[in-house]
């Protein structure tokens, strides 16, 4: 145990310098916010992740956001257990019929103002699962989406860029 602590002290920090917010993401969010009231959230966003049919690849990369390299809590981005505590729903997967109701309930339980981020290619266009009768469709068919983060799955650094853009405009 001591060796871990010494390592942490002497090897320097593993945490990377933050990337600039994604330019495309900034543009998309600016457009989304134009239509809604803007509220100061003290540069902090509470995020509820919802897997609405993902293959779990996106979850792996969202989980990686908390590791010491990306450490997104330092930006004020916090993953919360309940949609009632959330400002942002981060949704992955092509929305399946079997998850549709749970997703809608999570959205309804999230207090206003709220934002929806479609994470990964599946949430954007159903990815390889497009056309399956078990899939409702892309997230935009079900919820108003404020931001897309593309990728299969998006690398953590891309997710950070997108979330920072959201923070820049919202927080």
């Amino acid at each position, binding site marked *: *145990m001591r*060796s*871990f*602590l010494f390592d942490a002290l002497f090897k320097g920090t*593993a945490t990377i310098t933050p990337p600039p917010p994604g330019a495309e993401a900034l543009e998309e969010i600016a457009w989304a916010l134009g239509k809604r009231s803007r509220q100061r959230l003290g540069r902090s966003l509470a995020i509820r*992740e*919802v*897997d*609405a*049919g*993902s*293959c*779990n*690849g*996106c*979850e*792996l*990369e*969202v*989980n*990686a956001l*908390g*590791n*010491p*390299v990306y450490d997104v809590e330092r930006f004020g981005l916090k*993953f919360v*257990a*309940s*949609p009632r505590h959330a400002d942002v729903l981060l949704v992955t*997967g*092509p929305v*399946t*019929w*079997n*998850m*549709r*109701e*749970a997703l809608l309930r*999570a959205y309804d339980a999230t207090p206003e103002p709220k934002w929806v981020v479609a994470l990964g290619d599946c949430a954007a266009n159903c*990815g*390889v*699962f497009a*056309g*399956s*009768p*078990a*899939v409702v469709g892309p997230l935009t068919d079900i919820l108003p989406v404020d931001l897309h983060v593309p990728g*299969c*799955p998006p*690398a953590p650094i891309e997710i950070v860029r997108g979330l920072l853009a959201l923070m820049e405009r919202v927080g």
Partner: protein
Amino acid sequence: MSAGTTLAELVAGRDAGSDGYVRLAVAADVWTALAEGCAAGLHDLSALWADGDRMRMALSTDRLRVIASLRTEAGAYPSVSARHPPALRLERAMRDLHGVQPLGLPDPRPWLDHGRWPDRRSEARYDFLPSEGDGLHQIAVGPIHAGIIEPGHFRFTANGETVVRLEQRLGYVHKGVEGLLAGADIARGARIVGRLSGDSTVAYAWAFARAVEAALGWTPPPRAVLLRGVMAELERLAHHIGDVGAICNDASVLTIHARCALQREDVLTVADACFGHRLMMDRIVPGGVAADLSSDGVGRVRGLLGRLEATHAEIQRVYDAMPSLQDRTVTTGIVSPELARQYAAGGFVGRASGRAFDARKAFPYAPYDQLDFDLRTRTTGDVDGRLLVRMDEIEESLGMIHRLLDRMMPGPLASASPPVAPDEGAAGEGAALVEAFRGDLFVSVRVGEDGRLARVHPRDASWFQWPLLEAAIEGNIVADFPICNKSFNCSYSGHDL
């Protein structure tokens, strides 16, 4: 035949296909005798699926592998789970997806069909099994869980703190994968199968590639086979390290968790630098691989292995020296050896309960046929056992990658697809068993005469592990469920199809 038919009797000198499976058609009485053989422990049930007007059952002993086919009568056939309970969810799923009717099915409730699919008039209502008694209460959890994990519903019945029953309800991330695969071309099939469970994308892509290659008589070049091994072991390392950290996290030991998360990130970063994708998705394709490892990349992987070796030893030392952590893991969530055997549980779930099965050892496929490694088991069957099996496997994988890199030779990455369409019959069919990080996964492929996929059935290791989690948590406290669940780390997506 009440004691069940053995595979040796059944096969009676018949030759196996190039994939190692003996395929034969059986009558209903032999089918039920085979199911009874599973129950009697004569052989393991490896997979069970519907294929047009036939039901198919993959069975194995330590040396024989058989795929038995039974022609259904107007969709009906004698239920396997009526004799061998581990087949239950498979039969319920196949009934939901393909309309087959297992006669005598002990639990007639739907499984993947939640009554939500359009053009389907099934009930959305689902009756959980009753639990009656003084002071019992139910706790409903999910489908959306508190953490960043996949969705599923857990219905606990508890007596105070103690869980008296857990009943799982899965299927929330059912994406209709089998339907999408039917009629798809092989390249598209590979992309879909590679997304059945993102954490096992390499293993799935490999199993699919091997099944297609067996079906078409296609041989990948030697360099590709070695690279497949490197990718698969990197995937195993990443998830085992992540799981060890996550289990410790559930016992509030954040130091180990942070260290493991850092090491896992190291693996994924190296994978990205070497193969162009952090999870190495779509890098194994039928006929070979789609990414090469440069000499620079070999150096990166070796550097990674050195860093992991040092950390692995330190994590083991810290874990051993922490009674407060072991207090949470030792004797928590026990799976008995009998259950592990009955369910033919793969991976660390089986190996922590004394089941010495590893697809890389039992039915070695290249490059594991030329790669020596220790298959270590534990007998405690608890969270501690499953964690220690992972630690053992990390060590073995590190050594294996070194040896694979030693043997790396120059050469092509893929071979051209065979020019002729397969002959009629068995030539167009192949199956493969691959050891993913969580256990053996099975993929069966039937290629049609037009060269497209006629039927693909993937069976995740989780099918035979999820039910054991229900058993493992019984008698434990509700608060220990997260750590038990993490020690299993079953796939929802891989199971939900």
